[in-house]
């Protein structure tokens, strides 16, 4: 029985975008078990909901996370609309889809850059973030801000995209397609990347189902579940195809996310072509009351919002369960048996968004 040591991974580590500590129990070079410690950026947003009225809470929901911000506000708005039985116009649903998919592309490009940085492939990191700049400029031209779009509101969207804006969207989508065709095959076929990711951090289909994995982590293990299939917010009219892989290791997760990036571009093209004319929001009167659970597929998986209103303008309870919170338990199952040098790659392959986890 060799001696065991405990090495703390984090909270400050060059590969982590946000602080999380994993206490790794090591036997020589192999990890035996891992224990997470979070709480470094807990902001208490769920308590702040009791003080702000339900229209102002859209901005609060948006600021739970910086990388998946628009989809948080869409989930919140959908929940309140269901509670108050508000029917959102079709144009608003399509605009939410377009901005949501642009946001998904930006999130996956950010993740691809960070993952390449974790094994020292700086070239792909810089190139992915250069493509991401085009997406951020597109978001500023159509919505006004680069990251916190602030366009979703209860009852629809607050801004419209003009025809010039839509032409710009299609132009950027075509440019991105060319860039992806150039560098995504390099990432997927590179010998060094394959050596470092194939067989590393394996999560079997049974483990993924039992531990409640969501998003690309579950899809890479063969579970074909994507909440967009239920057809909220114009996904039913635009349609898409679920990208899965079977091997359940880090390489499979790279394949799934790269496939999703291509699928996002296709969806944006279809949505822009099918965009109907009409109003972009409806006036919302009264206060929310009742309970509702609202779910949306974010770039990292399924996010769940539980909202409870009691007839006043402040909500009684807003509970958020973000996808990274659900993927922490599978992470603890992936780590035992790997080497210390593989830990950053595995942690980044679940796409950790710790500010979402801790709110």
């Amino acid at each position: 029985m060799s001696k065991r040591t405990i090495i703390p991974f984090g909270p400050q580590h060059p590969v982590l975008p946000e602080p999380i500590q994993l206490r790794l129990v090591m036997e020589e070079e192999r990890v035996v078990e891992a224990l997470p410690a979070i709480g470094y950026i807990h902001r208490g947003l769920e308590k702040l909901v009791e003080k702000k009225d339900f229209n102002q809470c859209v901005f609060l929901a948006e600021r739970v996370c910086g990388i998946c911000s628009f989809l948080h506000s869409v989930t919140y708005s959908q929940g309140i609309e269901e509670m108050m039985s508000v029917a959102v116009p079709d144009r608003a649903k399509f605009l939410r889809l377009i901005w949501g998919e642009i946001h998904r592309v930006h999130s996956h490009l950010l993740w691809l850059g960070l993952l390449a940085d974790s094994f020292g492939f700086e070239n792909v990191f810089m190139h992915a973030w250069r493509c991401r700049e085009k997406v951020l400029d597109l978001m500023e031209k159509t919505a006004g801000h680069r990251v916190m779009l602030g366009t979703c509101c209860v009852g629809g969207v607050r801004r419209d995209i003009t025809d010039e804006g839509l032409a710009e969207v299609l132009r950027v989508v075509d440019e991105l397609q060319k860039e992806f065709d150039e560098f995504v095959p390099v990432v997927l076929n590179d010998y060094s990347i394959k050596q470092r990711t194939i067989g590393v951090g394996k999560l079997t289909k049974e483990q993924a189902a039992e531990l409640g994995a969501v998003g690309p982590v579950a899809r890479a293990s063969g579970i074909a579940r994507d909440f967009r299939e239920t057809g909220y917010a114009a996904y039913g009219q635009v349609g898409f195809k679920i990208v899965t892989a079977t091997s359940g290791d880090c390489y499979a997760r790279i394949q799934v996310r790269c496939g999703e990036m291509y699928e996002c571009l296709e969806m944006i093209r279809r949505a822009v072509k099918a965009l109907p004319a009409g109003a972009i929001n409806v006036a919302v009167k009264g206060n929310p009351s009742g309970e509702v659970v609202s779910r949306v597929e974010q770039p990292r998986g399924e996010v769940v919002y539980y909202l409870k209103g009691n007839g006043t303008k402040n909500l009684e309870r807003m509970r958020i369960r973000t996808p990274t919170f659900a993927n922490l338990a599978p992470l603890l199952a992936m780590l035992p048996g790997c080497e210390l040098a593989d830990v950053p790659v595995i942690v980044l392959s679940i796409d950790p968004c710790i500010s979402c986890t801790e709110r």
Partner: protein
Amino acid sequence: MANMIKRVFSNLFGRPATRLYPFTRREPFVGSRGRLQNDIDKCIFCGMCQRRCPTDAIVVGKKPDKSWTFDRYRCIVCGYCVEVCPVKCLSLDPKHGD
């Protein structure tokens, strides 16, 4: 690997991807949300913007001396005050800062 050779050459001999800020600046895009402005002559000091602001950044003084101030660091430039203003004196300027 051969695909990256094309990218290597275009990186070596092409324009840099970054701008030489602060010597060259990009013009802000139309419709970009930079900073809140108030046309103080049209303002009727009703206080709607103060009530709606999510971060309590606006303070409207009522009688006897009417004033309108906002904390620039609290403002998240969401535009909620612009939407509810009844006389439309508030607007968002695309330029950040200064």
